Structure formats: C-alpha cells, structure tokens
C-alpha cells in the first residue's frame, strides 16, 4: 500500500505534466515516469510478467519510438500557450472533471467486494499462468496480433519508405561529372570557398567575401541557404562603402541577388 501512496501522487503529477508541459520532450519524459511507476504497481499487484513487459516494451521500445519521432520533427518545438479553439480548454476541463467525478461515484461505491488475490492463479507461476490463457482461451486473439504486427510493419513501410528509383551515383561518377563540367562549362572542379572569412563575422553562415567585395554565395553550406539562414553580412557600413567605391557594375550584380 505504501508503494501505491508514494507512486500515485507522482503518477498523477507526471500525468498532469503530460498535459501542461510546453515541450513535447518533457511530456514524453513525464509519460515515461508514469509508465515506470505503473510497472512498479504491476509488480506490487502480482503481475511480474507485466512488470517486465511494461519496462521492456512500453518504456523501452514504445517510448523510444516516440522520442525518435520527436527528434525527427524537432525536439525543441514547443506548443504555443494560446488556445486557438474557443472554449476548448474550459470545456475539456469541465467534461474531464465531470467524467472523473461520475466515474468515481458510479463505480467507486460498487467496488467493495473482497479481493481474492492471485496467489492461487499464480501458483504455477505468473508467466505459465498467462501462457496457459494465451494459448488456449485467447489463442485466436494471439494469432491475430500477428496480423496486427504485419500491418504495422507494412503500414510503416508504405507510409515512410521511399523506394529508390534511380541508382545513386558513386564517388567515381561524381568525380567524372565534375571534370566534365569543368571541361564543358568551366566550372571550378575544386572545393567551394570556405565561409566566415569576413572580418566582423566568423561563422559558417556568413558568406565569404570575394576580392571585389561581392559575396561568394557558394561558400555557405547548401542546407543553410535553402532554409534562408545565411547571414547577410552586407549591411555593415564598411561593406556598403566599399561597394559604393567600386561602381555601378557591381550594383547591378547586387540587385540581381
């Protein structure tokens, strides 16, 4: 009983954390707390097998999956605190409270019959007992969990797997291509210029300045450019002055950007 009274508040608080935490990761951690506590409660209630499964499958596998996905979509995203649907929170709270109260009143008064306990059922061992049920009474359900698993795999494949349609080019191919480009279009075969050589900034998101004062776009990594995260160092007055000295030609080029 002590275990229960220790864990129950923790679980409730952790569950509330699931609702209240702004960051998804925190919510996930809260859930993990609940799950582990739950595992303990299983153990207390003569369910050692479930205790193990809860830890291994739930906390170990399922929660990890959640975390993977969270990382995939951006760990540091946090929900905005403003509720966008009018009255949703209030309604949720009211319904929730009413629901809990109704359930407690409706059910609470009834659950008074004495607890039989699992000593007899677990006489041959908890796992054996479960297995006996699993392979007799619930064998059909058990067999159909196979279908469930297959579906899960298949579904994940269908939704997330991208069949490769063109063979990826090898290093050799790339090298050949590069030389060909140089031969035909005169593109520089070597590495692009390194970024961050500008006096005031020294970072990968700052494009290198060419001797004529213009920036070398290709010096910033492709991915940053696509996200539009490269720093526009050109607003610095020194650069502006320099640009003015150089003349109209470069201005035009500037405008092109």
């Amino acid at each position, binding site marked *: 009983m002590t275990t229960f009274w220790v864990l129950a508040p923790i679980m409730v608080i952790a569950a509330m954390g699931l609702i209240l935490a702004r960051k998804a990761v925190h919510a996930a951690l809260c859930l993990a707390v609940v799950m582990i506590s739950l595992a303990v409660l299983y153990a207390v209630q003569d369910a050692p097998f479930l205790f193990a499964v809860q830890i291994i499958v739930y906390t170990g596998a399922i929660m990890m999956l959640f975390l993977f996905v969270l990382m995939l979509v951006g760990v540091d995203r946090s929900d905005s605190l403003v509720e966008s649907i009018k009255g949703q929170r209030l309604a949720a709270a009211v319904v929730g409270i009413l629901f809990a109260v109704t359930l407690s*009143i409706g059910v609470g008064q009834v659950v008074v019959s004495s607890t039989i306990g699992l000593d007899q059922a677990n006489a041959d061992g908890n796992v054996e007992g479960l297995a006996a049920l699993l392979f007799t009474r619930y064998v*059909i359900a058990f067999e*159909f969990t196979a279908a469930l698993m297959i579906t899960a795999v298949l579904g994940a494949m269908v939704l997330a797997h991208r069949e490769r349609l063109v063979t990826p080019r090898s290093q050799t191919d790339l090298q050949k291509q590069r030389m060909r480009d140089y031969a035909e279009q005169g593109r520089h075969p070597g590495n692009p210029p390194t970024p961050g050589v500008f006096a005031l900034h020294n970072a990968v998101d700052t494009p290198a300045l060419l001797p004529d004062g213009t920036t070398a776009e290709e010096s910033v990594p492709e991915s940053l450019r696509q996200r539009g995260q490269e720093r526009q160092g050109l607003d610095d007055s020194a650069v502006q002055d320099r640009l003015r000295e150089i003349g109209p030609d470069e201005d035009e080029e500037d405008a092109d950007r």
Partner: protein
Amino acid sequence: MIPAAQLDYWVLSPLFVVAGFAVLGLILEAALGRRYRFVVQTIATAIGLVAALVVSVLVYGDLRTPEEAGHVARGAVEAEGAVTVDGPGVITWIMLLVFALLSLGLFAERRFEAGMSPFTGRAADIPGSDEESQAVQHRLEHTEVFPLMLFALSGMMLFATANDLITMFVALEVLSLPLYVLCALSRRRRLISQEAAMKYFLLGAFSSVFFLYGAALAYGYSGSLNLTIIDEAVSARADSGGLLLVAMAMIAVGLLFKIGAVPFHAWTPDVYQGAPTPVTGFMAAATKAAAFIALMRVFFVAFGGASWDWRPTFWVVAVITMVFGSVVAIAQTDVKRMLAYSSIAHAGFLLVGFSAAYVGIANEAVLTSVSSVLFYLVVYGVATIGAFAVVSVVRDSAGETTHLAKWTGLGQRSPWLAGTFALFMLSFAGIPLTAGFIGKWGVFAAAWAGGTWPLVVIGVLASALAAYFYVRVIVLMFFTEPVGDGPTVAAPGVLTTVVIALAAIVTVVLGVLPGPLLDIVQHAGAFVR
C-alpha cells in the same frame, strides 16, 4: 503443461483463409517484380475472397440448427469461447466478403489514372514534389493495399464474431490499423487524404481506448471478458450495478464511434471525403456492418440481461443520429460528404432497429432486431459501394469532381450513370421497389414489434428529411441545366462498370423480391450465447 487449444478449424476457416491470403499477398509483394505485382495481387485477393466466401457459405450450411443446438440460435461458440460461429455471424462474414469483392473491383480499377491504381504511387513523397512526379513516371503503385484490405477484412470478420472483449479489441485494431493506412493513400488530393488518415487515426485510437476501458470495467464487474460469462453475471445481478452501467456506456462509446453515431460521428465526413473513394466505399459499407454486428453481439449477448438499462439511452442516440445526419446532409455541397452524413443517418435508422432489442417469438420466423439489421446492412452496404463507385467515375482533369455543383446536368450527359446513382439515392431514401425500402421496413417493423413505435414515427419523419437531400441530388442531375462544362464522365472501366451494375441489380432485386434474403436473415436466428 498447457493443454492444446481446442480449435475447430473448419468453422473458423473463413477467418484464416482471409488472413492467410493477406500474408500470401505480403509474400507476393516481396517476391514479384513490380510489373506483375498489381495484376497478381488483384487476382490473388480475388481468389482469397471467393475462397473465403465459398467456405463461409459451406460453414453456414454446417451450422447446427436451432433444434440441434437446443436454443433459438444456430451455431455454437468456438475456439475456447473466443469466437462465436453462429447464424448472424456467418451471414456477416458472407456480407463482408461480398462487400470486399465489390470494393476490390474499385481498388483494382486502373482505367481512370492512365493505367494506374487510384492509390498514390509512393506515399512517402511530398505532394507536388519532383519525387512524386518521378514516381508517376515510373508508374509506381502501392500494391500493398490489397494485403492491407485483406487484413482489415479479417479484422472485421473477427470483430463481428468475437465472443470475448479482448478478442474483440484485437479485432477492432486489426480492422482499424490497415484502414488508417489506406486512408492516407489517395492518389489525388494527398493533403486531405493524409489529414483524413490522421484524424481517423487519432480519433479511432481515442475511442478504442474507451471501448477498452469499458471492457476493463466489465471484467471488473464479472471477472471475465467472455460475453457468455458476463451475461451470466449480468443476469444474476442484484444491485443496480454502477460498474456495469459505466462499462456498458464505455463499450458503447467505442462501438458507436465505429458506427458513426452522433455524437461520435465527427470523423465520418472528414474521413469519407479525404480517403480514396474505393476505400471510402469499403469502409462505409464493411466497417459499419462489422461494428454494428459487434455492437449487437455485445449488447444482446453480454448485456442482454440489462437491456432495459441501456435501451433508453440508445433510443436517444438513435433519434439524434437520424435527425442530425439527415439535417446536416441537406447543407452539404460535396457528394462524398453528403454520403457521409447519409451514412450517419443510416446509422440512426439501424440503431432504431437495434435499440428495440426485439428478439422475436419462439419458433416463428419474424423480423427481429438482428435479422432486420442484417438485411439493412446488406442493402445499405451494396448501395453505398455502388454510390461511391459512381462517384469515382465522375471526374474532370483534376480527378474526381465531388462538388455537387459540378454534377448538374449529369443526367443529360450520361443518363445511365446518373440513373443508377439516382437509384442508389432512392434506395437510401427508402422509396418502395428499391432495396432500401425493405431495409427501412425491416428495422421499423422490428422496432414497432419491440414496442418502440414513437421511434418508428420519428424514424419515418427523419427519412422524409433524408429523402430531401437525396432528391436534391436527383434534381441536380436531371432537372438542372449543366453549368459551364459540367462534369466529365470518364468511361468507366470494366471493373467499375461491373461493380455499379451489380450494386444496381442487387438494389432493385432486393427491392422487388426481398423474400429469399429476408428468409435467410430470419432463419439466421439469434446470437449464440
């Protein structure tokens, strides 16, 4: 030592045939080259369905008759008490298999998308991206839809015959998960397809937890998950049984969600609209059928002893569902959404038949709640698949044109297609000489016999309301001059044509000569306890 489970594989074989062919499909998926997959998968699925159908019919013939079984029902509890192979159950199997066969015709139709299936070529691609067009160029097709459909079907079949709540829950998930995936696979309008999948998934998961929690409480009440044993506990109860009531309520929520009853209906329009049309048809017909039989099984078998406790609540739900579905459908401008609301309204009519809980008179072949609902599900399902098949044919360059405004003048452009659609609409509306009429007749007859004539009166008024929007579609198709270009009707492929024709024929035949089928559903008897 654990004794081996006593399984009568023969009576359970339809389940295993379907599931087995699903697995086979998976193997084929891995083994075959891309060029052959689609055709082979289609054929394999068809063979599996037909085989299961044949086996089901044979199993039905083998069921113990009521005389042999010693009670009013036909059949017996099998598989260690987990599955009930009884009259209504096997008929549901047959019904589901027929729905699946019809839907398969739509799944496999490759005429509309330049020789490609109605499903997206590669679900993982971002809509509108280069990859997607590349996938189209390479003529990619997700042939996994066939095994997925078979898995869903196996889940439905198990769902309808499960005799314990855990098996039922597993079946519920087996039927739901493939559908979630299928919903996301529309070739056109990927965004809403994915949205539909997500909504369906989140809400489906949410509601299934309610079912599960109800099961837990029922277990808490009776100490067993087996419907038969729960029934014993319920029948023997002395107290008011708050635990039982809450258990029933929560289980009802889960099942009503699948049926699409108000206020658990909200997913229906969105998902029906977003999902690929063949999937919508399959889902609308089959899921509803399976879930309804499961609902009836749970409430008649496990909670039959408490029927006066749950009936009033279901009456209210039935009324709200009928009225809400019919009323909101009026304002719809999208065919698929309209059909979705119509399916909500039909759920209401079905609930009328169900909530009367009329079990009939001993040794008399009369329309009971079970038999009338079975009949209704057949006619509704067939017409639904037919209607969605028609929807899949009415297209313009951007795919299906589901906006009703685009349907104006369809009757003049292609009278046969519009005529069949009108036929389905009339059947939905319950106009005599269509199957829908006999269906409505049946549930109302059962309801009246069960003593709930006010529900019948409300029901008929609601069907008048419903008739309004069905008729509106007919007006649109036949009496309104087409605006601008009007719909382009793609020449339907053989498969779709066959599906539409079959559905139309069944709708008419069951409207004029419903005798044989009525006979069958009446003799299916009650659920085995």
